């Protein structure tokens, strides 16, 4: 039985490797989403802003210094008012911050204003800028409301009085921040496993029915269950074969010199490499690495089983492709890929509990970003249950379908 199963698995692997279209079908959408995250990284956080400093006094200079100092919030460019008007008209900048000519005089009367001319094209962008400029302006009268004040002011026991009468004592949960790209790229690992696992096995199974090979398999001297095991093993090997190098690459990108922050590379090169460099998984301890392997193994088995069920049910490669792509997208997004489930409406949060990928993404983030494995056991248990269920269902359906072919 082992020989027959292994033969079937090897054959499936060979068929898959000779199907570039199928490999592309499984990988392209996931890699497309990866590119999406990389590009998205360029557009979150900082917005291009023109700074026009018309005031010549020391207070105006101080205000300008505060705005210039908030490099995390703005991609700032100083320019004359006329140029700034042109820049906002041609969308080179999203906003203009103007420190007016009479700033010092007005500030002495407690009536100074900083003008924000804002391209409020959508609320996300507009709110980002409103928050940032409000903070910069507040910092003028209350230095502790700036980022440094939030991080190292009252939280370090230094509370300075300010006219707003409230200050922030910020305590961060962890020592290092994970970049937006790194945080969002993690679910793509899960998406690749889903795409390859589901589509790979589903296409192989559907092709057997389309090409009438199911009858030939039935007539072979190998037992039916050996072939079923072989199909599932083949699907698993295909998934591991495609996913393992990608995950390994995620740990190796740390060693690409241009991926390091402050690498000194030109901007165009940094942007070009932002995709590959974004594929950077944080180093983990051996316990977390084991947890990672167990989790990816459970997801692989679950998706291979699901793919087999899909192939048996649809028996048409085009239908299988479209269904698998749609299903993968739903599983990915409802599971928390590119979204944080906690942000979603309550009913969607409840729905997400029934989507196995939510446990995979949650578990993966826990294993990669958090010092402990709190809640990981629960995630792994749910995924193992799903894997067991889908393998049993797939084996039963496939064996029955082949018998009736």
């Amino acid at each position, binding site marked *: 039985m082992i020989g027959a199963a292994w033969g079937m698995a090897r054959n499936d692997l060979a068929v898959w490797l000779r199907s570039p*279209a199928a490999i592309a*079908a499984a990988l*392209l*959408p996931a890699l497309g989403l990866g590119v*999406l995250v990389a*590009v998205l990284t*360029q*557009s979150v956080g900082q917005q291009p802003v023109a700074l026009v400093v018309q005031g010549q006094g020391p207070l105006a200079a101080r205000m300008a210094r505060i705005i210039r100092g908030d490099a995390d*919030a703005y*991609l700032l460019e100083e320019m004359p008012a006329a140029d700034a008007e042109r820049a906002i008209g*041609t969308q080179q900048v999203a906003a203009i911050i103007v420190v007016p000519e009479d700033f010092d005089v007005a500030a002495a009367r*407690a009536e*100074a*204003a*900083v003008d*924000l001319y*804002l391209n*409020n*094209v*959508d*609320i*996300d962008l507009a*709110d*980002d800028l409103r928050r*940032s400029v409000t903070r910069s*302006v*507040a*910092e003028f009268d209350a230095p502790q*409301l*700036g980022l440094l004040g939030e991080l190292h002011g*009252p939280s370090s026991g230094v509370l*300075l009085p300010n*006219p*707003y*009468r*409230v200050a*922030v*004592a910020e*305590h*961060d*949960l962890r020592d290092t*921040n*994970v*970049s*937006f790209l790194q*945080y969002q790229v993690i679910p793509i690992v899960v998406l690749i496993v889903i795409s390859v696992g589901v589509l790979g096995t589903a296409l192989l199974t559907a092709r057997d029915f389309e090409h009438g090979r199911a009858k030939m398999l039935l007539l072979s001297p190998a037992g039916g269950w050996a072939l079923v095991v072989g199909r599932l093993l083949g699907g698993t090997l295909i998934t591991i074969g495609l996913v393992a190098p990608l995950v390994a690459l995620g740990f190796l990108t740390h060693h690409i010199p241009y991926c390091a922050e402050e690498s000194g590379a030109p*901007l*165009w090169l940094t942007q070009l490499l932002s995709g590959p460099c974004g594929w950077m998984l944080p180093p983990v301890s051996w316990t977390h690495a084991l947890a990672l392997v167990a989790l990816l193994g459970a997801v692989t088995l679950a998706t291979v089983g699901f793919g087999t069920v899909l192939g048996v049910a649809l028996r048409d490669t*085009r*239908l299988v492709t*479209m269904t698998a*792509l*749609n299903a993968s*997208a739903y599983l990915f997004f409802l599971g928390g890929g*590119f*979204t944080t489930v906690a*942000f979603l*409406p309550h009913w969607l949060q409840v729905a997400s509990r029934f989507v196995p990928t939510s446990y995979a993404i949650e578990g993966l983030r*826990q294993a990669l970003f*958090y010092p402990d494995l709190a809640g990981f056991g629960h995630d792994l248990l749910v995924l193992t249950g799903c894997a067991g269920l889908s393998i049993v269902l797939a084996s039963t359906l496939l064996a029955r379908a082949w018998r009736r072919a």
Partner: protein
Amino acid sequence: MSAWRLFRSSAALEAAHLLGSRGFVALTALAAVSFLAMVSLFGLTGSYAPVALIDRDGGPLARRFVEALDGAHHSFALKYMSAEAAEAALGSGRLVGIITIPAGFSDAVARGTTVAVDVRIDNVNVDLTNDVQRALPAAIVGFARQHRFPGTSVEMVEHDVWPHDTGYIPYLAVSALALDAMVIAGILGAMATAREWERATVKLLRLSPASPAIVLAGKLCVAATVAAGALALALLVIEVGYGVVPIARWATVFALLACVAIFTSVGAWLGALLKRTLAAVPLLFGLAMPFYVDSGALEPTRFDGDAIWALAHLSPVYYAVGVLEWAFHGLHVTPEPVWVDLLVLVVIAVVAVILTLGRLARGATR
């Protein structure tokens, strides 16, 4: 055979093929609504960070401060819970932070004393952390302004380019229509031409005295009509489900139909190039997301810098989003005028049709 009869016959044949692939067409239409739903899910994460609020004071000024947090530019979704529950939720990634208003807050603020509000942040994601860090001073400023606390010397005065803000989901949903047009019309267009190679009928087409241009026109008209139907479904979901109504209805319909025609032509070329539906479908799905995000779908691409903006010009979705955002919300999201966006789309369509005809007729010209 007259040109009209040839066109009708080709269209009828394509319609029969599509009827035979009802499941595939239905799944393509489902993909249209799916994209919309997915994009909306992403849009929901753009604001309202889930943050636990622990009010140890309970006084009137503490309540006003909570209101200020609520009104800080759509920043926080405040959740009231015990300190223990909040800690557990923060540790497992279900909260972005915990804001604790200390006991005695109201009295101290009323006396003019500065009070520190304790904020614990799960800084696992730098974007969310930045949002919270920037929103807190905004809430504090709003709180102080509401009570007219003396001593502030400067304030921000905002002048908006547009008369009102466009919500993030309405903005994203409209750009998702452009994505839908690309994927659905592209797939159906690709299927129409790839089938000629899959079933080896391309040889018959080349040997036939019938004009390939008219045959192609018949096939693509049906593919475009079905794609337009699927897109109408997505439009209905946006209007009824999301309550987003275009300000220029006829311009919207015209823009969508233009997008359908254009992307059907591009899909037809892809199908003729790859010769297999199975290869064209994932390619379109794979291209969809990068094209989408680098098209001004999330914010005007020009804001992302020169390199990304220049790259965006390679994506037909860039021009489609430019036209659709204008038709739906009256927004200009590309520096180019809307008519230029439309013109580029038409040029892309014409080039795609010419290239497709070239592929279909290659044997005939040899």
